């Protein structure tokens, strides 16, 4: 079986792995690195649960070949904040009740982060567009949108 050497930075740590060239990023992150915050819910890049940031851009890791991350920066939810030191987006999701089952939450927060990195005070419409690739079956998105707008305010002040 063919092998490829993958070097990348994941949540700030240098990672060096031998992978199958056809391996998808989600499988490397979950299966090899134990980053179970990266969720897989459709395997076709259609629901956003597996979203990670690749050089600050959101990508569906279930249809992104791992080798696309070669020499790049990968951020997963585990690298955004920790239980003792939450990112403002995580705080806002908690305070606003934007989390129900939590399965879409990591991908949702990372899509929101990519938006806020580009636009510090987005409009509600921009928020809705930014997370439109992330499906949620529990919340109706109402509190998610509120949380993201509120996090933007928090991060600015």
């Amino acid at each position, binding site marked *: 079986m063919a092998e490829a050497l993958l070097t990348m930075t994941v949540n700030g740590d240098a990672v060096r792995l031998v992978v199958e060239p056809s391996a998808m990023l989600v499988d490397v992150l*979950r299966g090899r690195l134990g*980053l*179970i*915050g*990266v*969720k*897989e*819910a*459709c*395997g*076709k890049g*259609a*629901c956003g*649960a597996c979203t990670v940031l690749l050089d600050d851009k959101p990508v569906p890791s279930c249809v992104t070949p791992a080798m696309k991350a070669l020499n790049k920066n990968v951020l*997963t*939810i*585990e690298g*955004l*904040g*920790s*239980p003792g030191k*939450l990112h403002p987006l*995580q705080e806002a*999701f*908690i*305070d*606003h*009740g934007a*989390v*129900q*089952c*939590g*399965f*879409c*939450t*990591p991908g949702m*927060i990372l899509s929101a982060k990519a938006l806020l990195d580009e636009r510090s005070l987005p409009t509600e419409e921009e*928020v*809705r*567009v930014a*997370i*439109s*690739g*992330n*499906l*949620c*079956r*529990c*919340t*109706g*998105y*109402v*509190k*998610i*949108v509120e949380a993201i707008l509120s996090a933007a305010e928090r991060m600015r002040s």
Partner: protein
Amino acid sequence: MQEYTIVGKRLPLLDAVEKTTGRALFTVDMDLPGMLHARILRSPYAHARVLHVDARQAERLAGVKAVLSKNNAPRSKVPATLGGPKEKVAFDEKVRYVGDEVAAVAAVSKDVAEEALRLIKVDYEVLPAIFDPEETTKPGSPLIHEDKERNIAASVETKVGDTEAGFREADYVFEETFRTSSQRHASMETHASIASFDVSGKLTVWSSTQLPFHIQRLLAEYLDIPMSKVRVVKPYLGGGFGGKLHMVVEHISALLSRMTQRPVRLVSDREEEFSATISRHASIIRLKVGAARDGTLTAIEAQAIANSGAYLSVTGPLRLVGEGLIRSYRCPNLKFQGQSVYTNLTPAGGFRGYGNTQAHFAIESMVDVIARRLGIDPIKFRLKNYKKMGDVGHANTLITSSGLEDCLRMGAEKVGWGVRDERVTGAKRRGKGVACLIHRNGTRLGLPDYSAAFVKLNADGTALLLIGAADLGTGCCTTLAQIAAQELGLNFNEINVVAADTDATPFDRGAFASATVYVTGGAVKAAAADAKQQLLSYVGRRLHAAPENLEIRNGQIYGEGIPDKGLTVREVAMEASQAREGARAFLGEASFENPAAAHSFGAHFSEVEVDTETGQVQVVKMVAVHDIGRAINPMVVEGQVEGAVQQGIGYVLTENVAVDQRTGKMLNADFANYMVLTAMDMPRVEVGLVEPVDPTGPFGAKGVGEPSTLGVAPAIANAIYDAIGIRFTEIPITPEKVFQAMRRRE
């Protein structure tokens, strides 16, 4: 209404930090040493005899540890959940829908398991299949289960008074036929199970189930081992909505684990989740309603066909269709005839609303037809005719509280009832619609309906709540902890919850029928009261005070004989645990039966904009006002309602299930083609709560999960009628249907 310090507060979920930081461990995230991965070979045919399965090549593939098929699977029937029949043999001699199980492989990796599936050779004798729920019961249709004549899976008949006389009395008789779809749950986490037998023969199953205790019993029966040898644990669960009431994967992973003596993981992929787990019952509902000129109803006759798909799974939804149709409005003469029928389609089962959702689309659309025809405002019509407190509601259950009138008033105000939006010009038309809703909490008188709880006071003055409740993401563990904290008199952050492990927690009914807060909440409140009583009796003995003259607030004990410097629960609990003499633990417990199956009420309002050129319907605004008694956590309640609106709009407008009428295969079994609403599709949602305290609920609370789905579809269909004057009786109301209906009218 009495105010409380913790009940009624908008507290964040206890597990929100784990979920937002990616630490929450779902079943799909678990890995055990030596764990095998299972995949299922599914039937490509809707109806066929499985003549021969040759798995020899698959078994020889390196890494394959077991293959399960009709050659070696138990011939006993799989016990069904929640009163359903035992009818399915796993890996049967016959397959009954595209996706039915033919074989399963456990291998060292998912890839190897999938490769092995391709090596299994199956000879089928293809049989004629039937998909139409009306055709299926006609003579000559292929029989799906040989012992079930005319493919009738179950029948329900209810009769009250004399409907013929009622129709004779009526000034008007209305007749309409409604059709609803086999919506999919589309939970973000698919069905998942890891089964592991240990050396003593004890089975542990980690499962994405809504019913840990029922699954424990079903597994023990199916595997023919004692219940004490089965432990079911529910880790974090990524949404259920009724789809995870059924044993879909657990028994297969357990069989494979028994064969291999290794842990076996079985997780549905998204296509399987859509096409080979469970769906909502598609239904055909015929309604005939007699009304007097003043709007008084004189007779309701309803007939329903619920398309059960290949297996019946449960009969409850059919009964609830009937209750919703004939017992939501006051009327003396009633008749319901319902049939669940088999077809060669994905099995139907529990889905949020459990039959009442289908009923609500029909009856609330029908009431709109009647009110408009009689020239009565739809709200006034409902105020006059809807069931009220003291009436007998659904399933012969007395209505113990109702805030419906306030719901209608508040909702009408929020949506601007009677005010037409003049801003819209050109091809766009706007309209408003309303629908009422009624739903019981629990299944009392239908199925055993109780839960239990333990409350352990720790030596440091905190409390541990041990419950079997299955939190699917609904936040019920948080809500139940609020009930415990309030009753104990502790602070919220002094409560910890251990939930859903059949070995560690007491029996729980499971998460269905909108009864976790109402029934399990009752158990939690009683167990907390028991623990508190033990603690106060201990204090009373020490201080020579009567326990009834003592109370606890915010972890502090007040009342007779308490020293001036105060006394905390922490001090007492520590002392009781360390005393040289008289040391003791405080362990509260309760088993609590559903007291009255209280009814939750609500009124949904929608405003829509219809593009008459394209047929596109845009929901501009949804107003959902609910009477759920006291909201234990209003933020959690709003979240339930907002999510229900997303599912409800999908049900009525976008979530079309496309089935190939030749093969019976679901054509859109993925998120790219099955249209779940995204953040861009959602309208503005306003949630209102009226809180008439229910005398039978814990702190006056009732359930919200299922009721919140009921009014969305009819409120939107009624708003579409208001906008363009066309009545849609079949959902989903896709742009194509609207467009064609507009064309036909021209």
